[in-house]
């Protein structure tokens, strides 16, 4: 499966990853319409954190041991066996936030309007997700990640 990684040393904290994530998940792919004219703003599934000169962009990492999948009360959160992605079945999700309580990255949030949990969906199968495609400094990039499901007691990989 492909995973999104971050080089925080070149992230300038501009927030464009959030903006293009919002746009990608809006009902209309026009910035003005999506942000100004069509009801509530779409929600970003990525989050920029910044402190002084340090910044990075955070989203679901599709963990090898996905606590959200294990904790989900309804079976809405599963790993797609083909793509390896953790997905939320909106019909089954009751928006109870149990997944949010166990996610070590804080990468799942609640869509309060629809009372569903949302997370990075890799732009629904796009080759290059919107956040990566629009990162002005290539701080975000995709890497093919092998054997995600095979590992049970994964070693801690060296930090990005």
């Amino acid at each position, binding site marked *: 499966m492909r995973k999104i990684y971050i080089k925080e040393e070149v992230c300038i904290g501009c927030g464009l990853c959030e903006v293009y994530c919002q746009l990608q998940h809006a009902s209309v792919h026009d910035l003005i319409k999506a942000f100004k004219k069509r009801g509530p703003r779409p929600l970003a599934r990525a989050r920029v954190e910044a*402190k002084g000169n340090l910044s990075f962009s*955070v989203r679901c*990492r599709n963990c090898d041991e996905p606590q959200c999948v294990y904790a989900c009360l309804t*079976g809405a959160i599963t790993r797609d066996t083909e793509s390896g992605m953790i997905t939320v079945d909106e019909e089954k999700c009751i928006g109870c936030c*149990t997944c949010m*309580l166990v996610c*070590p990255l*804080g990468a799942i949030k609640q869509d309060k309007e629809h009372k569903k949990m949302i997370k990075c969906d890799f732009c629904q199968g796009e080759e290059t997700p919107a956040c990566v495609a629009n990162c002005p400094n290539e701080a975000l990039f995709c890497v093919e990640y092998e054997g995600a499901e095979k590992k049970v007691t994964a070693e*801690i990989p060296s930090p990005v």
Partner: protein
Amino acid sequence: MEKTERIKYLIIGNSAGGIGAIEAIREVDTSGTITIVSDEPYPVYSRPLISDLLAGKRTIDKLNYRPFDFYEQNRISTIFGNRVTKLDLTNNTVFLDSGQKIGWDKLLLATGGTPIVPPIEGREAGGVFTFTTLADARAIDDYIRQKPDANAVVIGGGLIGVSVTESLLNRQVKVTIIEMKDRILNVILDEKTSSMEDKAVRDSGAEIITGHTVSKINGNTHGEVYGVTLDNGSVIPCGMVIIAIGVRPRLELVSGTDIRVNRGIVVDKHMETSIPGIYACGDVAEAYDFVYRENRLTPVWPNAYLGGRTAGLNMAGKETDYPGGTNINSMKYFGVYIVSAGMIVAPDTTYDEIITNHEDIYKKLILKDGLITGMVFSGDVDRAGIIYNLMRDRINVESFKQSLVTDDVGLLSLPEKVWRNRLATAPVVNGIENSIN
């Protein structure tokens, strides 16, 4: 003597724990025979969703926790609607109420909990229910259809009691909750958040009576409930009673065997009982709680799955430690969002509490010696998982604890070593404390 069928992995109980075990076993062993037995006559359903079913928000075909072809896809043989009546530990054999006998190589006891029904006079009357299974929800649903004017007394203001209250109010049933302690949800919420829920419940039209118990359920000559009498002698007329005091481990199969039991079945870090080859998980098991650092009952769905998963991996020969669980709850009753985990109030003065509280936002941490031992968040529960995982991984937060209750808490609230680790990967079954501390 007739030959007993022998199964490699026998699982008793078809809910979160049993399914967690199946999924784990199949990651390791794709061909070993698995049989799952349950006295409930249907494929696995999400137990927490029975409140949505009773509320009329969800139909019965939408309760499934896994796809309907789950058992077929995983090559599981199912025995549903049959009860295991006896364990024979000498011959590794179970007996079912159908007369069938099944032998096992590895056995998982995932029998769950059973509702606590105190010996209140009149509890056998018609119209008296518990609320932990799909069958319970359907029985209450049928009863409401027959008696749409019946109002309800809910005995117990815990999670089950508040949950059934919300469902009943959705069905236009009037509800009075009787809570023995001085506040509802007292096991999982602190005073502040409990009072928020109290207000939300009352605003929705239910009544709450605290500090009292039901001493008698009153039935008429037809054996149907018409009211309850409280310990102070006052009488509340009602057409139905829901007993929602809590659950206790369902231990009847192991009582009288050599399997060690304390409050639940005692398991080690592999979720194995005192008898090698026999495992237990979920509401029936007393497994490691990382907050109290001892075995405890933590009857919540996520722990059942994780315990079942750990048991399954070990049963299939992949040695794996249970990362531990603690009492975690996430609730949204009557639109009030609250999450809590671990301790909810400081047990004594050796613990610190740090709290922020402004507008609708309330965040409280309980700490001891720099380690988080409990959390209660309301209003803004976003990113609560960042804090929960600090608690689980026993990371000392003394130097940055104040930043954890701010509105903009994030990974950058944590020391660099920790956020780098979080960004690189997520916690694994073996935990990460050694690499961080």
